[in-house]
């Protein structure tokens, strides 16, 4: 039964929000004004509506004044609509007899004139009063949640999230683009500030992922399509051909030893190109899964030209000593093709990580020009015992006269390369100060060289971080405050001959200095991945202006996205160190668990339905629906909506020529009355 205007009894509440609203909006005046509007039985202003007494007030008024509609003017509905709907429900009313007016984010916080802001608040309140009279009772639908979870990205964030969920008994699909999980952390030598070895703490977790019965690990795979909604996602994953049957490969690596290439010849991605690998390889000793792969770009058994669809052509020209070595195991298969798998999951955790800043973008620092300029990630590999040099720090540049590689006796570490810079990236990458100091310590340990750090500010906000800085100072590492102007090999004095000269303004001493060093390390910052925009589209997320994935709320929903059931963890959301990443991954897993264990999601009842009598059967709505929720009854020549598929966008409603489609909560009548309301001021 539709309530007529006479029966409507509206209670109106305007919130002061402490001073947040009251400072710019005359709340008592708004309450007085609204009190004069038709249908309003009661109009109050109150300090904090969202507080318990505020909500209690609503419930009490509903009972005492027989209210059947409630309007609250306070903050954004995205923040507290749920709170007030619950309060209204607790008062014995249908929660959808409620409407919220945003006079904080859209009014008091964005304006400066008290009179105009108050006027705006009145207009917005009036719109809500006009609108709420048309509200109808609605029911929240409950949709079951698929208990499986997809974790995208197998860095430390993905590993931790997957393990947390798997240990809670949930089935997890962990999809990683690279041939092994581990991400950036697997490449690090030590971790700050405790200096425990990254591999020692990461490898056990990696192998736990590899052997966990609840985790399906798909490496060398990419998510290509995501359909559905919270609780019911259908995901397509492309498993790239590694030319090895994962289930048959035992990880013995006999194939690698017996490859026709006797020596490793091709740049090794894992070691930042500092080392070499063969066409058949395993990315690094602790790789998980322990499965080799073949690079068709360089393997002799493939032709250099490709099929029109981009797949490699098998030439069969090679002697295939690897196949021989594999023998009965028969794990090598040159005919393997990319494979598409479809999975159903209820929730998704995105942990796609970051990329390091390309140091070539700052040519003044000479990366790619002078061989002895390194990025920090290269140094991580160089000091690592299983790295390309076995942990010996030697220079890339000219060798000693006797042919042995030179060792650096002085090293300059330049901070903030690609961070805090208007020309490149504005943000602080958060980890560079700490990892630079870690590398300073490790390099000193390995080489005994003099180490110079060139910094803008030292930022050590973390447990034990400042202490680590102090330790470095005691070790005798030099810290020079100033942004480096350039790195050059142009010597001005005999001491500078054959060295790289760092030119910098020492802003503490107030002089320009030239510091000759053997090796320059660039502390490159963290950046969103180059394909972040595509990944974002895939999962229907948003990116901030800087390109990092956007969380739902910077403080109160830091792992949620605007798409329900899709969560974020790790550096894809912004630069952070390992402890923060792990904490965030745990939080994302907990959010997913909370959803799964409740078993269902509540869906906003803002779906659309078609008024059968008024539908003319023109079918213009049918192609508009992106979810194919609108169907056509041929016998009756009428369209109808499958409400289970409808997501409530209202696109069909806005285009129906006969006005026969109705969207709950956004009915034409409701919006027209809202328009009337916002314009009903002098």
């Amino acid at each position, binding site marked *: 039964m539709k309530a007529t205007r006479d029966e409507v009894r509206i209670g109106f509440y305007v919130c002061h929000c402490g001073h947040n609203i009251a400072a710019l909006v005359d709340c008592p005046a708004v309450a007085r004004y609204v009190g004069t509007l038709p249908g309003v039985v009661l109009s109050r202003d109150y300090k904090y509506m969202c507080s318990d007494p505020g909500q209690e007030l609503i419930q009490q008024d509903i009972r005492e004044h027989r209210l059947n509609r409630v309007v609250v003017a306070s903050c954004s509905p*995205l923040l507290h609509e749920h709170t007030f709907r619950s309060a209204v429900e607790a008062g014995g009313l249908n929660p959808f007899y409620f409407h919220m007016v945003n006079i904080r*984010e859209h009014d008091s*916080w964005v304006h400066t004139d008290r009179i105009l802001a108050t006027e705006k608040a009145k207009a917005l309140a009036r719109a809500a009063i006009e609108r709420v009279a048309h509200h109808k009772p609605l029911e929240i639908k409950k949709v079951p949640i698929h208990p499986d979870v997809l974790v995208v990205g197998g860095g430390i964030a993905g590993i931790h999230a997957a393990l947390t969920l798997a240990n809670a008994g949930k089935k997890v699909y962990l999809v990683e683009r690279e041939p092994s999980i581990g991400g950036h952390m697997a490449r690090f030598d030590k971790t700050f500030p405790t200096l425990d070895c990254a591999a020692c703490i990461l490898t056990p977790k990696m192998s736990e992922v590899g052997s966990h019965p609840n985790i399906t690990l798909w490496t060398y795979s990419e998510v290509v399509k995501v359909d559905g909604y919270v609780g019911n996602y259908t995901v397509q994953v492309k498993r790239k051909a590694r030319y090895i049957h994962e289930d048959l490969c035992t990880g013995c690596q006999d194939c690698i030893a017996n490859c026709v290439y006797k020596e490793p010849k091709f740049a090794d991605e894992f070691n930042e190109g500092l080392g070499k690998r063969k066409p058949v390889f395993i990315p690094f000793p602790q790789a998980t899964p322990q499965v080799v792969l073949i690079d068709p770009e360089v393997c002799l058994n493939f032709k250099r030209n490709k099929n029109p669809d981009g797949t490699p052509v098998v030439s069969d020209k090679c002697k295939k000593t690897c196949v021989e070595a594999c023998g009965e195991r028969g794990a090598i298969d040159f005919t393997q093709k990319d494979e598409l798998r479809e999975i159903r999951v209820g929730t998704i955790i995105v942990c796609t990580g970051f990329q390091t800043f390309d140091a070539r973008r700052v040519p003044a620092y000479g990366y790619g020009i002078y061989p002895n300029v390194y990025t920090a990630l290269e140094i991580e590999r160089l000091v690592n015992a299983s790295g390309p040099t076995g942990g010996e720090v030697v220079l890339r540049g000219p060798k000693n006269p006797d042919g042995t590689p030179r060792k650096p006796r002085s090293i300059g570490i330049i901070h903030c390369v690609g961070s805090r810079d208007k020309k490149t990236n504005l943000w602080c990458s958060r980890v560079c100060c700490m990892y630079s100091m870690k590398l300073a310590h490790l390099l000193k340990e390995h080489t005994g060289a003099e180490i110079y750090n060139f910094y803008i500010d030292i930022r050590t906000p973390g447990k034990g971080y400042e202490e680590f800085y102090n330790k470095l100072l005691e070790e005798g590492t030099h810290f020079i405050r100033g942004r480096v102007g350039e790195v050059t090999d142009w010597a001005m004095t005999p001491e500078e001959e054959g060295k790289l000269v760092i030119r910098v303004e020492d802003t503490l001493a107030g002089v320009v200095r030239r510091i000759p060093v053997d090796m320059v390390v660039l502390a490159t910052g963290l950046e969103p991945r180059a394909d972040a925009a595509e990944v974002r*589209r895939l999962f229907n997320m948003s990116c901030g202006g800087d390109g990092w994935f956007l969380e739902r709320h910077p403080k109160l929903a830091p792992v949620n996205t605007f798409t329900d059931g899709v969560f974020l963890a790790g550096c894809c959301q912004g630069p952070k160190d390992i402890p923060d990443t792990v904490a965030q991954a745990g939080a994302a897993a907990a959010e997913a668990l909370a959803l799964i264990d409740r078993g269902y999601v509540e869906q906003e009842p803002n779906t659309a339905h078609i008024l059968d009598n008024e539908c003319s059967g023109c079918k213009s709505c049918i192609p508009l629906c992106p979810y194919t929720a609108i169907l056509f009854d041929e016998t009756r020549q009428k369209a109808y909506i499958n409400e289970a598929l409808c997501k409530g966008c209202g*696109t069909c*409603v806005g*285009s129906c020529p006969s006005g026969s489609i109705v969207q709950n909560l956004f009915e034409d009548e409701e*919006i*027209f009355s809202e328009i009337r309301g916002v314009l009903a001021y002098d």
Partner: protein
Amino acid sequence: MTKEWSPRIVAFFCNWCTYTAADLAGVSRLKYAPNVRIIRLMCSGRVDPQFILDALARGADGVLIGGCHPGDCHYVEGNYKMLRRFTLLRRMLADLGIEPERVRLEWISAAEGEKVKRVINEMTEQLKALGPLGLPRKFAEWDREVIALAREVQDREAAAGPCPERPLTPEPQEAVHA
């Protein structure tokens, strides 16, 4: 009217991108012109051209529609659907003598609080330059003219005496928009 005229803008913002961006502008304490009244819809695809016409007819000097960037729509492609309608409507409005600047469609993502501020300020300035649209007043004027005309015809016919072949002019109607 003693108060200085200032444009009225009715804005239809989609829940996921532009409304959130307006929230972000608030949280960031950006300051913009207080002329805009935001109405929340789930998707810019829900914007019925009638909403825009109704807003203008009821005294809005401009209408702003905000949706997600192309390709980012929470509902896949509602914003494209809006764009199509919008293009048609703009042509129709031009035919009606309503300046195209009065109706504006903007793609504003949830991260672009700054753009909310810029667009609203820009639009307020543009509308100030254009002056009031004043459709309700025009409607009332037109109503008065029609009534006056009808009266004149009636008087003339009364003076000329009854005409047997034609029935009398019907009673002039009350002003519809008064």
